[in-house]
């Protein structure tokens, strides 16, 4: 498929929205993405024509709902090249996927002798979760500094026989920097450590192949990849999932219950207690399909060209500083920045008046943001429907904001 951003834009109804009288320029994609019409339509179609509870039902609606729900699991498998769709667990979001691994795997496999390695650039979800595991098990939590990019020898110095888990973001939601998982996994294997990849920012924006990368756990959220809110994914190797205890208890995750005891259902249902987010899963499958139709390589290329263009423009601006601009290695479509004088909040409000949506604050990565000597930053982040012209609008609006405020 030829990548044609103007064609793609037609698929996103919200882009016709006026904000404060201006055309919406949506640059808050790292927080959540917009949804193409076919994703929105699939939710509607589900509730208008097929809605029923899944599994266990003999009636037609239930069969249709179950088929669509399970088919979405296969579509997600295809997206990340997962060999067996039983490895795909539906969760609420990346955060829940992380908590599931922490609770059902880490608490049972780590002790006060062990250690976990994460980076200094983690989203709170992939940070506080392991702080808690550390508090509960007494294990050590080690930080790999990637503010200047991944350095293999730093990693070599940090990892040892007691490292049981390396949990790293694939792409930082602040720096845009893409961590080279392919350099992490071989070393982790050597020390018999498991590798968890926080793919919240990578899966929506680039090809991620769990088989080629040999990832043990991968987590991501549908809402950042054109899908709906309220649904996320945990991928894990089958043998790991087999050994893990259930995370929640209730309907669907059991095979047999007596007043004394219960037997767990097979994978993936062991980890899906209660009525699942059926419409959420189905429309996430549609979103995955939409992305695969475009091709994840094309998605990455498009965003990369926008980001490169935007970074050049930013360098021409006075008083604006891009956070992590020192890292010239692979980076995705996220630009966090500050102004020497104007607070990000004021920048955000002024841009909003122009219809330009950016995010301001700590981006759920407080300690990283603070390591740059600031408490908040503004962030523009791109997706398939953003254009070079929108970057121009952003840059002009920033210039105007400076004129207005200083």
């Amino acid at each position: 498929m030829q990548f044609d951003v103007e064609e793609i834009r037609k698929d996103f109804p919200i882009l016709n929205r006026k904000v404060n009288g201006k055309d919406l320029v949506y640059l808050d994609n790292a927080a959540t993405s917009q949804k193409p019409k076919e994703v929105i339509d699939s939710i509607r179609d589900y509730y208008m024509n097929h809605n029923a509870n899944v599994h266990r039902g003999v009636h037609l609606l239930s069969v249709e709902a179950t088929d669509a729900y399970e088919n979405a699991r296969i579509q997600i498998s295809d997206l990340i090249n997962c060999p067996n769709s039983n490895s795909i667990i539906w969760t609420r979001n990346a955060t829940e996927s992380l908590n599931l691994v922490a609770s059902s795997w880490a608490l049972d496999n780590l002790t006060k002798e062990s250690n976990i390695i994460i980076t200094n650039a983690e989203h709170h979800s992939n940070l506080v979760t392991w702080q808690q595991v550390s508090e509960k098990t007494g294990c050590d939590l080690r930080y790999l500094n990637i503010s200047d990019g991944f350095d293999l020898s730093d990693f070599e110095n940090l990892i040892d026989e007691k490292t049981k888990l390396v949990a790293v973001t694939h792409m930082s939601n602040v720096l845009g920097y893409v961590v080279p998982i392919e350099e992490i996994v071989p070393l982790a294997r050597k020390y018999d450590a498991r590798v968890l990849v926080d793919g919240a920012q990578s899966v929506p924006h680039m090809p991620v192949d769990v088989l080629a990368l040999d990832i043990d756990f991968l987590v991501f959220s549908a809402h950042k990849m054109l899908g709906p809110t309220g649904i996320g994914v945990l991928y894990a190797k089958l043998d790991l999932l087999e050994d893990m205890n259930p995370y929640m208890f209730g309907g669907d995750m059991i095979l047999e219950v007596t007043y004394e005891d219960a037997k767990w259902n097979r994978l993936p249902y062991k980890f899906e207690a209660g009525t699942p987010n059926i419409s959420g899963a189905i429309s996430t499958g549609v979103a995955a399909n939409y992305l695969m139709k475009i091709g994840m390589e094309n998605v990455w290329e498009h965003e990369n060209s926008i980001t490169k263009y935007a970074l050049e423009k930013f360098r021409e601006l006075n008083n604006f500083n891009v956070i992590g601009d020192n890292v010239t290695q692979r980076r995705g479509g996220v630009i966090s920045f500050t102004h020497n004088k104007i607070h990000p909040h004021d920048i955000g409000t002024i841009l909003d008046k122009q219809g330009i949506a950016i995010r301001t604050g700590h981006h759920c990565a407080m300690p990283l943001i603070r390591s740059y000597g600031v408490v908040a930053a503004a962030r523009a982040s791109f997706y398939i429907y953003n254009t070079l012209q929108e970057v121009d609008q952003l840059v002009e609006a920033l210039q105007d904001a400076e004129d207005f405020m200083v």
Partner: protein
Amino acid sequence: MNMSGLSGSDDLNGMYEDIILDHYRNPRNTSSLSKPDLELDVNNPFCGDELKIQLNIKDDTITGVSVSGQGCAISQSSGSLLAERIQDSSTDTVIHVIEKVRKMMKDEPISDDDLDLIGDIEALQGVKKFPVRIKCALLGWSALEDLIKKP
């Protein structure tokens, strides 16, 4: 694309009124007190606004006030307006002012007398159009309330 509309945006100008921008660029009463009777640091970790408020109080009158900090234009100018307003006021008056400011930010009707009472602080009215920013405008006032009412 018409970006020149920016300075013509009524809402924006309403929020970032000249008085606000003036207090933001040149905050009043920022030098710290040598012997504050009361002192409080407040911050809003979500957006990083920070204010330090120091007071000298004698015979129920604010004889000295210092407000300093860092953060957005709204939180900082609001702090400066606060400092300017309460200097030399009785604590009763201050409690009254806080009440009126809260009322104004909640969009409740306020009388001309009340407007007289709050003076320049009326400039914060424009923030009401930006609900997420109201927190910024009230940061200093909430802290002041804690300080005054505690003892």
